[in-house]
């Protein structure tokens, strides 16, 4: 297991470096002048030159990359061209907020989706299974902005039950949690799309498990159905869910652009999107790096969790 982890961490580092190189090359090959995009239409050549010099954009790209990597190693992700703040500060402000929002919504989706999937598997091909599958697929296929706007129109505009946005003055995690009513709608909207994935993976996995010999054996032994489900079926149906959960880590870190925009929640998604529109390379690189790290960590965690949940996998790999 130890060697396996060491090998995987090495692979992860190589993947992150590769992502960084690729992103660096791609964004530096964007058409047009970065300085003009930032400084605006009336940027004089002197101001453009000053900007390029200030941010090292007048150096060859390989030099820029080496300087960037050196800075990253020292914990410096650069300064945003547009916001004039250290990228690490901007990420540190937004990441915890997204972790709260997307973490809670993922947890909610998990809590609802997995039992629902198991329930559907137990009623496989019955009317209630079809209705629930249809419902989840409908919600899954509906765009989240549409669900968000419909919910806001109903809950906020029509009945004034909840506020439709996060107050602009609140930026800390504590502030967000204290204003928990503002979390309800975005959490629900984000969970709606995720719950379908969890429930349907859990359902199909549980259907397979239900046909397996060990389930037949425990049932034949007269074990109560409740224990069959909770002790045997649930744990063995969770493997694909663990995969999705691991892969959702970069989503949690990367933010949710649409929900953030609609619910006035300045998070990682909007930070990245606005940086992409404005040639703000340091933010693009910084957020890509963070999401890349989250992706490999998520995969790693999923693999490790496999081993914990399924001893056969653990033994096979050690």
């Amino acid at each position, binding site marked *: 297991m130890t060697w396996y982890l060491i090998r995987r961490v090495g692979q992860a580092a190589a993947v992150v470096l590769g992502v960084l190189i690729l992103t660096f090359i791609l964004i530096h090959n964007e058409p047009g002048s970065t300085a*003009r*995009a930032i400084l*605006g239409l009336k940027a004089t050549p002197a101001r453009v030159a000053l900007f390029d010099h*200030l941010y090292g954009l007048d150096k060859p790209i390989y030099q820029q990359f080496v300087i960037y990597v050196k800075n990253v190693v020292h914990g410096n992700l650069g300064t945003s061209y547009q916001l004039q703040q250290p990228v690490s500060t901007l990420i540190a402000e937004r990441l915890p907020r997204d972790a709260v929002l997307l973490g809670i919504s993922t947890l909610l989706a998990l809590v609802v989706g997995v039992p629902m999937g198991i329930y559907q598997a137990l009623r496989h091909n019955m009317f209630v299974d079809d209705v629930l599958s249809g419902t989840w697929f409908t919600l899954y296929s509906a765009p989240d902005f549409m669900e968000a706007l419909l919910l806001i129109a109903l809950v906020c505009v029509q009945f004034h039950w909840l506020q439709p*946005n996060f107050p*602009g003055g609140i930026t800390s995690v504590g502030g967000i949690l204290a204003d928990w009513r503002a979390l309800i709608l975005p959490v629900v909207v984000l969970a709606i799309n995720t719950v379908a994935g969890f429930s349907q993976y859990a359902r199909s996995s549980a259907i397979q498990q239900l046909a397996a010999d060990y389930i037949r054996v425990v049932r034949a032994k007269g074990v109560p159905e409740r224990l069959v489900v909770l002790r045997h079926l649930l744990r063995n149906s969770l493997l694909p869910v663990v995969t999705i959960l691991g892969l959702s880590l970069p989503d949690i870190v990367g933010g949710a652009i649409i929900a953030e*925009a609609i619910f*006035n929640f300045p998070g990682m998604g909007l930070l990245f999107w606005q940086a992409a*529109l404005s040639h703000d390379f340091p933010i693009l690189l910084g957020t890509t790096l963070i999401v890349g790290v989250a992706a490999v960590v998520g995969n790693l965690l999923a693999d490790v969790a496999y081993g914990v949940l399924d001893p056969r996998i653990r033994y096979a790999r050690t």
Partner: protein
Amino acid sequence: MRKTHRLAAAAAAVSLSIVIAACGNSGGKINTGKAVHGTPINGGTVTVAEVGVSPNLIFPLDPSTNSNGYNVNLTEGMWPFLVYIGDGASSAVNPQESLYSSLTYSQNDSVITIVLKPWRWSDGVPITSRDFTFVYNLLKANYNNWLGYTPGLFPVDVKSVLTPNAHTVVLDLKRSYNPQFYTDDQLSLIPLLPQHAWDRTSQNGKVGNYDETSSGAKAVYNFLQKVGTKMSGFATNPLWQVVDGPWKLAAFNSSGYYAWVPNKNYSGPDKPRLTKVEWTPFTDDTAEMNTLRSGTSLDLAGVPANDLKQIPQLEAEGYSVFQVPTPGMAQILPNLWPTGANAAAGPLLRQLYIRQALEYLINRSQLVSKVFGGYADPGNGPVPVSYGKQWDSPLEKAGGPYPYSPAKADALLKAHGWKVVPNGISTCTSPGTGAANCGAGIPAGDQLQFQLLYGSGTAAFDQQNAAIQSSEDAGGIHITLKAEPFDTLVSTTGTCNQQSHPASACNWGLQQFGYIPYTSDPSGAGNFNTDAIGNYGGYASPQMDRLINATEYGSSSAAFFAYEDYAAQQLPWLWIPLQSGVFVYKKNLAGITPTDPFQATLNPESWYYTKPAS
């Protein structure tokens, strides 16, 4: 809420792709808001919505590499400019609110004597001429790193600064200026800064007279700019608590939220009546509109361009509506340089008669009413009609030189040897350079067709450009539309003129950015001079240069109209309507209207709540 200040050029142009414009006679509604009945009361908090606004510098002199136009929104209420622009609904100088008590031009308008009012800083120290020289010294040593600097103008054009007494400053300039231009365009960029508190090179260093040497001024400027970017200290650093405006900063966070409280020692005429003003940020228009429609605590907010139809619902929620002309000009830029992909269109656009035909085929009054719901300036020429009567020539007020007329466009094209094909593509049948020919560089069979690039993401722009495409097409001029993100447009568009027109930045034919912000003196300087940085399409005319120079350096008050009419006729750019900013405010708020384009929604010292009349 957006401000389009003279320093806000770049950011305002960005915001303009979302909210815009001005109102006018030709279809635009003039609405100064509904009268508020009731008794004024002191106190209360006003919450103002701000979409996409995120100031990043509190030091009022922005470096040239920071074009965040919203910084001035944050700072102007604390460190107002020497000359205050905005008087009621007019974009005029307001001597009562300004920091000077008199401004006198002498010696052929090359010497300005400024007498400062006997006002005080918030810490009780008098405002003196030393505060002016402090700003001057900082800028003199650092003008290349000041966003407000225009090559050749303040502070480089100053020969000497004398301070005969504590409240008088004498500026001896290197040349004569048109007083109207210099006051409106230069002195309105200069705030006074507290020398007694800020003349230092470190946070805990002693205050001195460092600004009096060039190296010292550079050190002070660098220190203030550096500490001015530390958002965590915006509301807490004692430096920023020394103000001369009506407000002090009470809170700020990096998402763009900030709160003003009254400067209790403010010396000016409009003492704040409110206890607090909160500027609350929104990620985008949708979030802001949802909040407005949900009956929450927003007291003042802009109505997004795409949501004007929701105004009746907002009125039902308890809001009044008003519009503010946008200080700028909307336009379609023609690229006159036959470079790269513009090799065919460039020679066409160089012909005045073709630009005239294009303009005749833009149905501006229809765009104002149908696309902008009446909330727009008609775009009769280079100055918005609603900008202020001192700026609007009789020609512009009368609808401009090229009102919508397909017949005149048709006649112009035929008179120059074109076979006009309505709803098709017209072709040149008479090449040559004579009066009845198509013009230089236009071969026989050449087609009248152009590509119009414009900023994506705003439904109103999509509708406007589709309407322009349709009406041009009906007149035989074919236009293809291509929408790109605003920043992509900006980053790939260069100023294409005789000196520089690389194909990489000059491939475009027609382009629409949204609008170009104006200074408080809306002359064409910087846009239509032959070598101006904003003259993107490379228009060149010695006559235009002379007329613009007269508005800056001449003494005739008629110079402005002469320039304005010539520019309107010559079409260095094609004029199109400019959308107004539309706002709503709670009905128990007063003092918000009338407002001018420059102080729009940014002068809460005039606002107050009212008690309903019993």
